[in-house]
């Protein structure tokens, strides 16, 4: 574990030295503030001009922005690893005491920790739908695993950063497509359940109206699907020769 901490310390030094990386850390905050101020403002416009009440979809918007924050962080983490692979840095790390596994743990742990922080800020302060503490604790494990899922998807399947960019386009769909389940009826929507993000939307659609067992079940299933997805991609990445 110690070599991983050493890498983390040198990363922090890098962030302090490279102003651009520091600014990149505030990117999710921009999205959070856009949701905070933007959604109520847009709703006012829609109600007065089109008599369309957006607040019906606040749960959906909350889910989408939550997943988007994790998507941004996952992509940043994935891009970093793609860059490091193209520069053969991962090969260097692999022969140091850090090892390939330690390197991966360090990169992914950073993505998880950052997603937990930013997602909690989003849910507590900026979410348009009211979020209970129980919901917060149900959503965070899934949202936190979404970032490593995206990052691993990029590095497990892309041979280099150019392929990684093409896959990023696909990664966005992992978050966008299951949102359709919000509008689709019961038997058909379970088809989306293979997407980890589906469970985040489902949990938000349930709201916090007196179905604690159902919510708990959704959380357990969703976290399970996320962990399975991360595990499968992790295996795939570790099997790669580069």
């Amino acid at each position, binding site marked *: 574990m110690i070599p991983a901490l050493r890498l983390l310390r040198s990363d922090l030094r890098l962030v302090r030295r490279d102003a*651009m*990386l520091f600014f*990149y850390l505030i990117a999710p905050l921009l999205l959070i503030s856009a949701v905070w101020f933007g959604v109520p403002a847009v709703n006012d416009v829609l109600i007065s001009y089109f008599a369309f009440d957006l607040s019906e979809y606040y749960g959906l918007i909350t889910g989408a922005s939550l997943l988007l924050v994790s998507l941004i962080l996952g992509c940043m983490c994935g891009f970093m690893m793609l860059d490091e692979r193209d520069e053969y840095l991962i090969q260097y790390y692999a022969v140091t005491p850090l090892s390939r596994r330690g390197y991966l743990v360090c990169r992914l742990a950073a993505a998880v920790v950052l997603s937990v922080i930013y997602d909690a800020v989003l849910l507590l302060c900026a979410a348009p739908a009211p979020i209970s503490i129980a919901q917060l604790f149900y959503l965070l494990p899934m949202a936190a695993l979404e970032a490593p899922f995206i990052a691993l998807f990029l590095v497990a399947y892309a041979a280099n950063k150019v*392929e990684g*960019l*093409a896959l990023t*386009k696909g990664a966005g769909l992992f978050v966008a497509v299951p949102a359709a389940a919000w509008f689709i009826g019961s038997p058909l929507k379970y088809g989306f359940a293979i997407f980890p993000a589906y469970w985040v939307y489902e949990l938000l659609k349930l709201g916090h109206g007196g179905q604690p067992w159902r919510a708990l079940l959704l959380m357990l299933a969703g976290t399970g699907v996320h962990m399975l997805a991360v595990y499968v991609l992790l295996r795939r990445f570790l099997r790669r020769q580069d």
Partner: protein
Amino acid sequence: MRLTAAIAYDIKLQFRHGFYYAYLVISLFYIALLQFLPSSAREMANILLTFTDPSMLGFFFIGGLVLLEKGQDIHNTLFVTPYKPEEYIFSKTLSLTLLSALSSYMIHVSQFGFTTKPLLLMLGVVMTSIFFTLAGMGVAFRCRSLNGFFFLSTLVALVFVLPLSDYLQIWSTPLYHLLPTQASLLLLRSVFEPIPPLQWIYAILLLAGWSGLAFLWARYSFRKFIMLQMGGDGP
């Protein structure tokens, strides 16, 4: 002749790296999304989607293409051949523009069939794509990592997508008429709301002017950050 070969090779490279598959999937997703919308909102959604995604895809992809070549020191070997930097820039731009055009056309035709006259729409897509790819290339030559590229390019893009606030009737200023993207939106919209010739001539000239500037900037960035760094340990 050399330019056509270069473009053909760039297209092959992009195909092999999955750009075409990625955009096939993305376009199908947008088509499904548009089907899902009420028909009154479909025209506006078509324009918004076309402007924010297929038209700007070059801006996004050029970062990876340039950074990978930079990392692999391709430029060092490439430019000892007679291949000119200008050809390199044109080839990258035009090949990505083809993908923009294909994807936009597919999305548009899927919704509105062959009933509209999409000439100006497609011209808008092509010119917007050329401008954004050149601008993105200028940024990419200066960057060392993907995250750095996306940070800088987001700043650049933020300025240029401002005219969307005029289209969505949130906020407007006459200064928008100086931005190339105002012209892009004008051309894209003209497929549904015909505009007088003077307006589309203005839009085409404005986009052409900005694309010229973007080309000069990309070439300057190339000289400064690629050419002058060659032979050494690199930046």
